[in-house]
């Protein structure tokens, strides 16, 4: 017997009314990916501030360059006060971060992440950037682990399986998924297709695929068709919630 399908169009409503609403179900103990590269471009700054205001604790952050903008100005225009992943360590919410670049060369002043680490309040797991992004990509694409040449012969390789292919040694690295991904795009259509701009892509597209719930902060929401299909950078399937920024928002 042929199955019957309800062919009536199902409204897809992924648009949240506020940043606070979009993050309101994040529980304590959650693992949360924060998109972008480091710096203001591509960073979901308003979602981060909403997560800070939500106040849930014992969270694990996954990011790339993390927590160095506030003390060094990294990737922020000169006239603005930078906001970075350090907010979750300053607030005491984060107990762990997995990232590639958690501290700048200088310790003056010391960053919030280094401070939390020195005081024994946070674990800092430092991963080579290419391995970090590939672990995230793997999680989103059904690959449980992969071999990489990066990190062989360094502290990163300790305790990991080594294997030789064509005379070169590689490390086995495992996929890295999360409960939530907070990401940033320039534009979303109401279905959740995303368009990025410039260097704001970075970790955003891969993180969108690797979390149970992906929440995106955008500068513009358009009707389907408002994004050229040739320019879709993240497919709507990966996106669960969309929040629109205020057009007058002074933060980039």
């Amino acid at each position: 017997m042929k199955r019957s399908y309800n062919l009536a169009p199902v409204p897809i409503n992924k648009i949240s009314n506020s940043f606070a609403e979009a993050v309101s179900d994040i529980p304590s103990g959650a693992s949360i990916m924060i998109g972008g590269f480091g710096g203001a471009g591509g960073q979901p700054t308003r979602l981060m501030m909403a997560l800070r205001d939500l106040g849930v604790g014992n969270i694990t952050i996954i990011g790339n360059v993390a927590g160095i903008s506030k003390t060094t100005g990294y990737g922020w225009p000169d006239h603005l006060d930078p906001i970075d992943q350090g907010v979750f360590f300053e607030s005491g919410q984060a107990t762990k971060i997995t990232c590639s670049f958690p501290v700048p060369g200088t310790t003056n002043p010391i960053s919030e992440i280094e401070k939390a680490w020195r005081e024994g309040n946070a674990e800092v797991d430092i991963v080579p950037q290419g391995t970090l992004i590939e672990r995230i990509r793997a999680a989103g694409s059904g690959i449980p682990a992969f071999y990489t040449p990066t990190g062989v012969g360094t502290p990163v390789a300790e305790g990991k399986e080594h294997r030789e292919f064509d005379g070169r040694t590689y490390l086995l690295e495992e996929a890295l998924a999360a409960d939530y991904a907070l990401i940033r795009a320039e534009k979303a259509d109401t279905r959740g297709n995303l368009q990025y701009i410039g260097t704001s892509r970075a970790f955003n597209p891969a993180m969108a695929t690797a979390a149970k719930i992906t929440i995106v902060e955008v500068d513009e929401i358009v009707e389907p068709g408002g994004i050229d299909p040739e320019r879709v950078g993240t497919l709507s399937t990966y996106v669960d919630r969309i929040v629109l920024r205020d057009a007058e928002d002074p933060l980039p």
Partner: protein
Amino acid sequence: MNLSSEIMGNDPAPRLGRAAIAKRVARDLVDGSTVNLGIGIPALCADFLPDGIEVLYHAENGILGFKELSAPGEGNPNLMDAGGKFPKLVPGMAFFDSVESFNLIRGGHIDVTVLGALQVSRTGDLSNWMIPKRGIGSIGGAMDLAANAKKVVIAMEHTARGGIAKIVESCSFPLTAPNCVDQVVTDIAVIDIDRANGRMILRETAPGWTLDDVQAGTGAKLEIDGDIIDIA
């Protein structure tokens, strides 16, 4: 060439300035190559590309083909390089995400990377991500670049504060990658590393410096293979 104005401590002659180190590295860049510059002295290389040479600068955050930086205060956060600076939009530029960016690196498509270092060993081991005393460091793209770029050039000051050798027999700091450095350009010397045989060969010195002068500030044995010339 811009030399520092004064002779420091027991030095026989002035050392090169940071810009002169970068200029010497830039001189060897090959037309049409894809190049990744690290932060610090390496980033200065972009200012000294010889006339008639064009290279494609890659930055880990997902940009290929950038040239000069925007004027202070005019940068766009969505047009950044990996050092957190804001380049200008130029024709032929390409943007991509971090998966693609590290495909390029890990896949061996970067011709040259110029990086800074805390220590470089005789066999070409590189340490540049953590000082053990601090206990926390930042890897960023350095391990991927050092392990996978076709050529790894280190641009740095020859010695650390207090005259402590950064070029050593064996690195005491955690490694970024073993046996990866091909050339070291410092404020007093250009040294090629024969990685297959674990030999350091002194090629050039700052004017007024001899092999013995450079060796005195170096923790690994320097060998000679042909003439030593002045860094120009």
